[in-house]
């Protein structure tokens, strides 16, 4: 049966590692009646939670890929996009967020708002995603939901309002008091028992309900009046909370313990009650046919009869071939619908259209605006927009960060090499932050990504899914080079070795460019260099910036200004001017005081305060700069900026320093200048490498 758009929800579940996100997803699937046995993330039965569809995720107890899973609750269809929990996979998170209309932010009732909660919350904020909070693990020793609510307010600036208060905590956690219906809700196995509020909680329940009414009444005059006239109904509260949530001005807070099966059903009710349906979310596309000076942004309509516009947000290589997950923003698609890939212009026909459940797939006749589905046999890259051929729209692209680390990989034999090529092709399509190329000098295959763990996971997947035992080199940091002062060039390229000669002279200067990687400015007047050779000069410089003269890494932040030159009627050519520009760039580059830049990571370490000294020391040892340390009772967090090149092996060191009690996250922050001693060492290594290659 087709679901109307009002009864659809596309949600994500976001959290810090180990907040119980996967267990929560698992329980949601269970209570929605789709799976009948509940597995733990690190299950003794060796099966693992259903959402983690890859073996590797099962082993590591983390979720890597975002599988979209469809469930039903209270006559609503909820599509759950399981977002990865590790910062190394941020692109996956960002891509999932693009297709979400709402999210559940899961917090541990002890750990509360942790470093990564802040990261995922910032991402949700960037994509304007309304959210509910679920305070999980209320059965843990030290559980304190009220404190976590306060943290949501203080640290994340949420207008967080409790929808429930706990009945018992730690070992005694049995259920919650629902502050809307003012009933006790006890969760006993699969059953829910509603009853009177226990006498010792009545006073607190009334107090918290008043807080809730105060917060909710900001979004509804009707509710305000009803409060004054003492005729508040549950419907009025729901409507006001919903309005506040969708406007992202209110965060309803639920609580329970996914592991102990407490609070899940109430959370599901909250999802359908307060999170928006797809028609309530504004989605914007770019009209490619708009004239350059006209506004190109168009708001998509959730009308199923409008021309279809959809986004391929996830590719998966399954046992039945390539599966492309799509989100439909406008119109409808059916088997046979003709679509055009906005990037490649390629036309495709919709073949098999399916809906993914946690453990099986269902063939569906059509999918309409707002829905999430999957297509078989479509050749595309992740992030591609498909539209009706008459409709020249693209969905605004997802921000893709540049990779910061690379690794040489090689296959043991020729057959494995073919499989490796297949794997690399697949991964780079799936994940835009995963890049691969063959180094023209060393002829090695290089993979690039966002961190050590990010690449580790792909190396593992090569072994498991493609049966390639790859050998890997030492991880290499993606250094950059940059100039620090202006330098002039005047270079003549001249060759006369029989036959046609080569001649080109270029004059101009290089200067540092603050915002941007490369810019070419042509100021040549009076045809001193014929117009057709200007692009040749640009091309020559572009070749030069690919490999800087200090350690052979790409040059960033440089403006090339061409002011004058000379040509020869017969001997000047495209090649001659390319060579001249290349030579000129190198000539000026050496004079422009080039420096080496390295990726600097923002590192957060969290753990018991007793290890603070060890953590400070470990960061200092790695050329890190400690920005701040925050101590809250026995728990502390250290934020630091550390060069990526120094972060290899940090997880092992941290584990041994803190008896495994501290954890860290890191993400790319900026490119920073390397200190002189390190620069010298890098130059030495580069010289040795060149000597080996040439000698």
């Amino acid at each position, binding site marked *: 049966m087709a679901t109307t758009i009002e009864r659809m929800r596309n949600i994500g579940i976001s959290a810090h590692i180990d907040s119980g996100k996967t267990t929560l997803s698992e329980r949601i699937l269970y209570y929605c009646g789709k799976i009948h046995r509940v597995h733990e993330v690190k299950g003794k039965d060796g099966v693992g939670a259903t959402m983690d569809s890859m073996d590797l995720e099962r082993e590591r107890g983390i979720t890597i890929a975002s599988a979209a899973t469809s469930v039903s609750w209270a006559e609503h269809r909820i599509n759950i996009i399981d977002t990865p929990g590790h910062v190394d996979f941020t692109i996956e998170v960002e891509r999932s967020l693009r297709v979400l209309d709402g999210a559940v932010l899961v917090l541990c009732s002890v750990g509360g708002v942790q470093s990564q909660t802040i990261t995922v919350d910032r991402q949700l904020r960037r994509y304007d995603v309304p959210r509910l909070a679920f305070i999980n693990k209320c059965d843990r020793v030290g559980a304190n939901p009220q404190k976590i609510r306060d943290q949501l307010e*203080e*640290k994340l600036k949420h207008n967080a309002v409790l929808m429930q208060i706990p009945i018992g905590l730690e070992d005694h956690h049995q259920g919650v008091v629902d502050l809307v219906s003012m009933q006790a809700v006890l969760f006993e196995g699969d059953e829910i028992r509603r009853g009177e509020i226990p006498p010792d909680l009545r006073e607190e329940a009334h107090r918290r309900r008043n807080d809730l009414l105060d917060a909710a009444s900001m979004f509804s005059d009707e509710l305000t009046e009803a409060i004054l006239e003492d005729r508040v109904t549950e419907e009025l509260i729901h409507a006001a909370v919903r309005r506040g949530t969708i406007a992202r001005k209110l965060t309803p807070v639920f609580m329970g313990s996914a592991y102990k099966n407490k609070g899940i059903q109430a959370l599901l009710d909250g999802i359908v009650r307060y999170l928006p349906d797809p028609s309530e979310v504004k989605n914007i596309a770019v009209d490619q046919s708009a004239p350059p000076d006209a506004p190109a942004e168009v708001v998509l309509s959730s009308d199923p009869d409008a021309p279809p516009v959809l986004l391929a947000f996830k590719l998966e290589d399954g046992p039945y071939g390539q599966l492309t997950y799509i989100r439909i923003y406008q119109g409808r698609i059916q088997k046979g619908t003709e679509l055009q890939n906005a990037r490649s212009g390629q036309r495709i026909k919709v073949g098999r259209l399916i809906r993914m459940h946690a453990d099986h797939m269902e063939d569906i006749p059509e999918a309409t605006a707002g829905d999430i589905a999957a297509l078989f046999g479509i050749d595309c890259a992740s992030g591609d927009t498909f539209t009706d051929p008459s409709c020249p729209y693209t969905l605004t692209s997802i921000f893709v960060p540049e990779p910061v680390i690379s690794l040489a990989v090689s296959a043991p034999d020729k057959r494995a090499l073919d499989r490796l090529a297949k794997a690399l092709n697949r991964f780079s399509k799936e994940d835009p932050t995963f890049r691969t190329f063959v180094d023209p000098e060393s002829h090695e295959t290089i993979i690039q990504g966002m961190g050590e763990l990010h690449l580790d996971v792909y190396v593992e997947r090569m072994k498991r899914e493609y049966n390639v035992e790859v050998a890997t080199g030492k991880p290499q940091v993606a250094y950059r080079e940059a100039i620090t002062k202006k330098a002039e060039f005047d270079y003549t390229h001249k060759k006369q070795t029989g036959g046609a000669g080569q001649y080109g002279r270029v004059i101009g200067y290089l200067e540092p460019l603050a915002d941007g990687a490369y810019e070419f400015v042509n100021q040549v007047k009076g045809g001193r260099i014929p117009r057709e050779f200007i692009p040749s000069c640009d091309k020559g410089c572009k070749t030069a910036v690919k490999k800087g003269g200090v350690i052979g890494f790409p040059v960033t932040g440089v403006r090339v200004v061409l002011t004058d030159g000379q040509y020869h009627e017969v001997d000047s050519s495209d090649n001659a001017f390319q060579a001249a520009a290349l030579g000129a760039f190198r000539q000026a580059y050496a004079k422009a005081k080039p420096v080496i830049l390295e990726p600097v990571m923002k590192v957060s370490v969290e753990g018991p*305060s007793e290890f*603070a*000294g*060890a953590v*400070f*020391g470990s*960061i*200092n040892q790695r050329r890190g*700069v*400690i*920005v*701040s*340390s*925050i*101590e*809250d*009772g026995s728990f*502390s967090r250290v*934020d630091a900026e550390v060069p990526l090149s120094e972060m290899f092996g940090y997880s092992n060191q941290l584990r041994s320093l803190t008896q495994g009690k501290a954890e860290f996250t890191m993400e790319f922050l900026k490119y920073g200048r390397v200190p002189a001693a390190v620069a010298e060492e890098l130059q030495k290594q580069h010289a040795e490498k060149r000597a080996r290659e040439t000698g």
Partner: protein
Amino acid sequence: MDAKHLIKRSPLRVLEDSTHGGPGPGGLAVLASPKGVGKTACLVHIATDKLFQGKAVIHVSYSSRVDYIMTWYEDIFKEIVKTHRLRDSETVYDEIIKNRVIMNFKQDGMRTGQVLRSLEAMITGGKFDADTIIVDGYNFGLAAPDDLDRFKDFARRMNVSIWFSASLKETGGEMFGPDGTPVLLAPHAGRIDVLITLEAKSDAVEIRVVKDHDNPPAGVLPIRLDPRTLLIAQEK
């Protein structure tokens, strides 16, 4: 102007000269005023001056959030850049800020012993060679009698100077004693080397030296806290 000239010309030299070099290594200084007069701005200006000299500073806070303190530093730095037309300011800021660490403690239940342990971990474990420790928002009302002794002992052992801020409240009686010492700080006066009070006047904040080691205090200084820029400035 470059950083070297800026240090030389800083109005903070007046403060130093009027207090025999400030608290000095192993010494404690306190900046006291009612809430909202500008203690944090003053402390951040003092810290920034140290950073300009290439010295390392630990900024301890009890109440404020870390990003709030970072903003203080950025704002004060921006004002200094504007006032002194500092060249190449972004590079200078990136360079000096590496020598600052912010340590935030929730005071509820956070005892002086624990704070000092963490500070020591930063200085010795983290090899952070601090010159000055700024302690903003310390609650002198809740301080145990020997707390300041422990800070003093720590300052001596680590060879650092410590600057506190003290928030003064009217508690029915007088805020200041006859010699200008705030009543709140009277029990600790013997342990404080330099004591300065801030007083809001109509157009600026007056800075008064109430205690200067064992020397007679200089009284009201010819420098002011400008309420517009929140910088300490020479009197016009």
